[in-house]
């Protein structure tokens, strides 16, 4: 076990922090072994081992250390674990340490200490703001090459290449009150709301509740140290049956109507896969009331080379010492414009560190904290600036000097002070992200120098309250008081009448006025010798922002995209307000005039797998299969997706090509017996006394007089006059019909019918039920199909006279009760045998067995397409595309002239739908009978050497037809009905095919085969 040089022994009165020193944990970072303790984060454990250099910056590959304590961390981005469980861009400050944790730094090669990419830093003149758009733009043809190199050189971590092996769950919850953040304000709110009996969810992104109280040693509530008060409150909350406590749960999205998303890390902190336990849970929370208690994010100070490892946020430095028992430096220097920085100095002094100095931006600091620091003998440099930092892999010292009174320059020459830690406090930004996501408006608070929540967007669903730091409240006493009120108000809004409990007494250091200096003055202008970093993660400097403003960027959204400030995994948590201030100063305007960029979900990066949950793989989209599906699979069918259905496409025999198989199937379906699994066709049961009238209105033809047991083909239009579906409908009884739809259109047609029934014709008594899944359908056709069916069916007279075309008979087929329809999509004599789905396989097997001697041949959707095209039958969605009318299809015969109205009738008579040169359905025959046109190919009259040419239309269906002994095609061609016999051209890459326009019927032109 390695010693932990920066781990300090527990303090006699202040304690040893929140770690468990009895549970040492081994871990690896960049291949080297270290130890930490249970309760550590990876960041605190690395600092305990004196590891400050943890990453390389994005653009310049500058050495970087840990800046923050939590979600705000821009530098310490870590790749965790290996293989397909590997996860990039995790913040070391948020990774809970576990035994065996294996972490790597990112964006360095060959190793962190000697990174080749660091040459970028010396070539920085090549990488100004917008360098993508400038340096690499010329010659333009090289951009793709440049981009590839840039993408390889940049980038943060590496995404795993295989599927995520972990499991994620979705949870739905509907609390009365959701409280986001379990710091002092959130805990107080939860307690007040929970005591009323309201259903409360309290979520916090950290492993332990308490927020800032865990990192302070100078706050006492009701006489107890902060963490003790937290423990009591959490214990009481845990005992409440209606309160759900969600630690390790980051509420990261605030969507409409109080719908919030939170990701719970269930096993990430254990570092092992736990059986029957998801890795993460995505909580989908619909809250009646929301209390935001998200705290604050500290602002860095912008000074020269402020990115040296060892320069960190003051509250972070203090958090490591107080919460984790780690001194991030033995000789800290504090630079602050705020009394809060003094607390860090005092925390370090109390733990034996020798504070190098407090550089205070304020000329005359005063107050209890300042007095306490003076009493400790700490050197306070009032009205001073840090002109720049020194050091390579670790800060070694800073240059300080007295500022001019207005803070714009230095009044004296600089002097060097040695230090190994710079704790900077540039003030605090309320964490307004979720409030802003709820579309609430922000207001610039000139006293705080920060944006605070102002007006809510939708009062009915806005956050009921923002309390504590995220509302701009800077004392814990007030945060707790506001939290209690907000928690109670929220509970009352959902019906509680409980009384408000008394606020606890809070003892905390008093704070005085602060001073904000956005860019600390230096002995050299910004942009000369060294860099003033604003956005650490994206390597955006004050000089870059100045440049963007000088180049004419005014909108902060544009500045963001041009300079990349505020982008990346941290989304500018530490940089945004500094960037706004610098842009405002350059533009000579104020910060509210510049405004903020839009806050968008998620607050912190969230694993995509959590959103997927269980809806992946087979559960992503259901696959629908027919009852005979196992038979198709066992007999080598190739399948195609039709909507969610898996349909046999063709059944190749050993050694057959697709073309050979389809040719064989097409020939057999006419000359012997073909059998098609037609179960996927949409089926709708239409019932009620007005059913016939209803069909009369939704189809173009007449339905009132259709006899019972008779079938009719129908074309369905929308009110614009365009074809949307077709199918055969059969009258089962006076008040009952069996409608079929296209396979892919079933759900859409049902919705279309329901919409009209509910909204236009509520007076009609019609009931619609989808029965697609209730029936298995085997469609047999061909010369021998009647003979085959007769063998299996003795209770239906199958003769043409007794059972004519377009009729339905009920009977028994292979011992199974069946409805047999004499309808045909191939033009052959054909029977569609419908049986209850559970008999589908039995029917199929019986037909195959009895049909063997007749040469029964199963055929798939490809042969079905060819067979129907041979007869010129359309497929909706292939010959039609939502802009085709029945007249375009030469189906005038199906459009009733006598009905006063049907859906689409008026639409058909719009002027544009009656133009003579509309695209109309025709057949095409190629000059060479073996040439098969590609579907979608464009058709022209006059071929030019190169486009553009005047397009006449396109090929909608095209096949080789074995039955015709040649290729056939259907097409939509402008004025096609008047072009029969014309020769047109289909220009393709490298060749042009001549075609003759024909009727779209290629086989059995008299239609004599349907009766056998």
């Amino acid at each position, binding site marked *: 076990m390695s010693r932990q040089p920066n781990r300090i022994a527990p303090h006699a009165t202040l304690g040893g922090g929140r770690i468990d020193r009895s549970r040492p944990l081994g871990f690896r970072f960049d291949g080297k072994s270290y130890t930490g303790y249970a309760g550590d984060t990876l960041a605190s454990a690395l600092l305990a081992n004196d590891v400050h250099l943890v990453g390389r910056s994005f653009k310049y590959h500058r050495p970087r250390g840990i800046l923050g304590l939590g979600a705000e961390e821009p530098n310490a981005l870590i790749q965790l674990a290996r293989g397909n469980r590997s996860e990039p861009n995790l913040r070391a400050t948020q990774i809970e340490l576990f035994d065996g944790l294996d972490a790597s730094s990112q964006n360095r090669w060959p190793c962190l200490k000697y990174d080749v990419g660091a040459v970028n830093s010396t070539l920085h003149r090549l990488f100004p703001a917008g360098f993508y758009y400038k340096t690499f733009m010329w010659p333009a043809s090289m951009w793709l090459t440049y981009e590839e190199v840039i993408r390889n050189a940049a980038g943060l971590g590496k995404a795993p290449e295989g599927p995520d092996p972990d499991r994620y769950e979705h949870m739905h919850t509907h609390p009365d009150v959701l409280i986001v953040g379990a710091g002092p304000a959130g805990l107080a709110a939860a307690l007040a709301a929970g005591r009323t009996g309201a259903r409360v969810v309290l979520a916090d992104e950290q492993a332990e509740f308490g927020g800032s109280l865990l990192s302070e040693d100078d706050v006492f509530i009701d006489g107890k140290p902060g963490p003790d008060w937290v423990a009591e409150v959490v214990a009481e909350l845990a005992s409440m049956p209606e309160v759900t406590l969600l630690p390790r749960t980051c509420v990261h999205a605030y*969507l*409409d*109507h*109080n*719908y919030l998303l939170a990701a719970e890390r269930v096993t990430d902190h254990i570092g092992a896969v736990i059986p029957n336990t998801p890795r993460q849970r995505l909580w989908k929370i*619909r809250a009646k009331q929301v209390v935001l208690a998200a705290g604050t994010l500290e602002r860095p100070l912008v000074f020269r080379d402020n990115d040296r490892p060892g320069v960190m946020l003051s509250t972070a430095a203090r958090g490591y010492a107080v919460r984790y028992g780690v001194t991030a430096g033995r000789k800290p220097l504090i630079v602050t414009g705020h009394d809060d920085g003094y607390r860090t100095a005092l925390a370090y002094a109390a733990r034996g560190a020798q504070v190098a100095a407090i550089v205070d931006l304020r000329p005359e600091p005063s107050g209890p904290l300042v007095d306490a620091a003076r009493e400790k003998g700490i050197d306070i440099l009032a009205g001073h600036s840090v002109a720049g930092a020194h050091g390579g892999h670790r800060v070694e010292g800073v240059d300080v000097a007295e500022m001019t009174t207005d803070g714009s320059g230095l009044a004296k020459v600089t002097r060097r002070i040695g230090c190994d830690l710079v704790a900077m406090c540039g003030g605090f930004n309320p964490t307004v992200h979720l409030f802003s996501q709820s*579309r609430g408006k922000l207001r610039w608070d000139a006293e705080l120098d920060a944006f605070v929540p102002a007006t809510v*967007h*939708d*009062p*009915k*669903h806005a956050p009921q309250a923002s309390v504590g730091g995220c509302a701009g409240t800077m004392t814990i006493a007030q945060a707790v008081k506001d939290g209690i009120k907000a928690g109670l108000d929220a509970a009352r809004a959902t019906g509680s009448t409980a009384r408000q409990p008394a606020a606890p007494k809070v003892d905390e250091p008093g704070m005085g006025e602060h001073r904000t200096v956005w860019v600390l003055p230096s002995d050299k202008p910004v942009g000369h010798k060294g860099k003033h970093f604003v956005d650490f993660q994206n390597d955006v400097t004050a000089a870059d922002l100045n440049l963007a403003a000088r180049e004419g960027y005014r909108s902060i959204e544009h500045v963001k995209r041009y300079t990349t400030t505020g982008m990346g995994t941290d989304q500018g948590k530490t940089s945004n307000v500094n960037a706004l201030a610098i842009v405002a100063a350059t533009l000579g305007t104020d910060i509210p005039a510049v405004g903020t960029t839009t806050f968008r979900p998620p607050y912190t990066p969230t694993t995509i797998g959590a959103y997927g949950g269980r809806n992946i793989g087979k559960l992503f989209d259901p696959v629908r299969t027919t009852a005979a599906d196992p038979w198709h699979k066992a007999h080598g069918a190739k399948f195609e997706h039709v909507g969610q259905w898996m349909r046999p496409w063709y059944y190749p025999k050993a050694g057959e090509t697709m073309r050979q198989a389809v040719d064989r199937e097409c020939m057999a379906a006419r000359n012997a017996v073909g059998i098609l699994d037609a179960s996927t066709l949409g089926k709708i049961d239409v019932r009620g006394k007005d059913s016939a009238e209803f069909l009369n209105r939704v189809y173009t033809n007449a339905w009132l007089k259709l006899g019972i047991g008779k079938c009719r083909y129908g074309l369905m239009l929308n*009110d*614009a006059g365009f074809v949307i579906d077709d199918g055969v409908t059969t009258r089962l009884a006076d008040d009952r019909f069996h409608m079929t739809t296209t396979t892919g259109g079933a759900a859409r047609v049902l*919705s279309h019918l*329901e*919409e009209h029934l*509910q*909204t*236009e014709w*509520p007076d009609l008594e019609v009931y619609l039920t989808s029965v697609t899944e209730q029936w298995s359908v085997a469609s047999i056709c061909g010369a021998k199909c009647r003979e085959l069916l007769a063998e299996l069916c003795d209770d239906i007279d199958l003769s043409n006279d007794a059972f004519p075309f377009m009729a339905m008979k009920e009977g028994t087929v292979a011992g199974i009760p069946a409805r047999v329809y004499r309808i045909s999509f191939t033009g052959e004599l054909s029977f569609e045998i419908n049986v209850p789905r559970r008999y589908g396989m039995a029917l199929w097997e019986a037909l195959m067995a009895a049909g063997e001697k007749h040469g029964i041949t199963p055929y798939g959707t490809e042969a079905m397409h060819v067979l129907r095209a041979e007869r010129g039958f359309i497929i909706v969605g292939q010959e039609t595309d939502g802009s085709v009318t029945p007249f375009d299809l030469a189906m005038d015969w199906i459009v009733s002239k006598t009905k*006063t*109205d049907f859906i689409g*009738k*008026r*639409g058909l008579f*719009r*002027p544009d739908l009656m133009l003579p040169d509309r695209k109309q359905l025709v057949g095409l025959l190629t000059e060479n009978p073996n040439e098969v046109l590609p579907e979608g190919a464009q058709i022209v009259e006059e071929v030019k050497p190169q486009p553009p040419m005047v397009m006449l239309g396109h090929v909608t269906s095209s096949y080789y037809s074995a039955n015709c002994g040649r290729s056939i095609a259907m097409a939509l061609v402008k004025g096609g009905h008047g072009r029969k016999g014309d020769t047109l051209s289909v220009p393709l890459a490298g060749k042009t095919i001549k075609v003759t326009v024909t009727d779209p019927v290629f086989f059995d032109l008299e239609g004599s085969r349907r009766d056998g």
Partner: protein
Amino acid sequence: MQLIPCPWCGPRDDAEFHYGAEAHVVRPAVPADCSDAEWEAYLYLRRNTKGPFAERWMHTNGCRRWFNVIRDTYTHEIFASYKPGEPMPDIAQLTAKKDA
């Protein structure tokens, strides 16, 4: 993710619904009497209101019933929902009540 009040099922997540655009667009009783312009208006012309708006929704993954909602298309605030055939509430009155 809005919370849509279905008049039959109560408030439900908007993932259960299908949007149906402007409400109270009535199919003309005698389409043959419509001029081309009137039929075009019925087919295609819809208001694109910013603010409170009467619109149709269908509870697709629920009761499969169509209904109407008065919803602010900008704030997404929902003021009322009602069954087809019921008269459109007075939008000005609904929104005024909220301000009071």
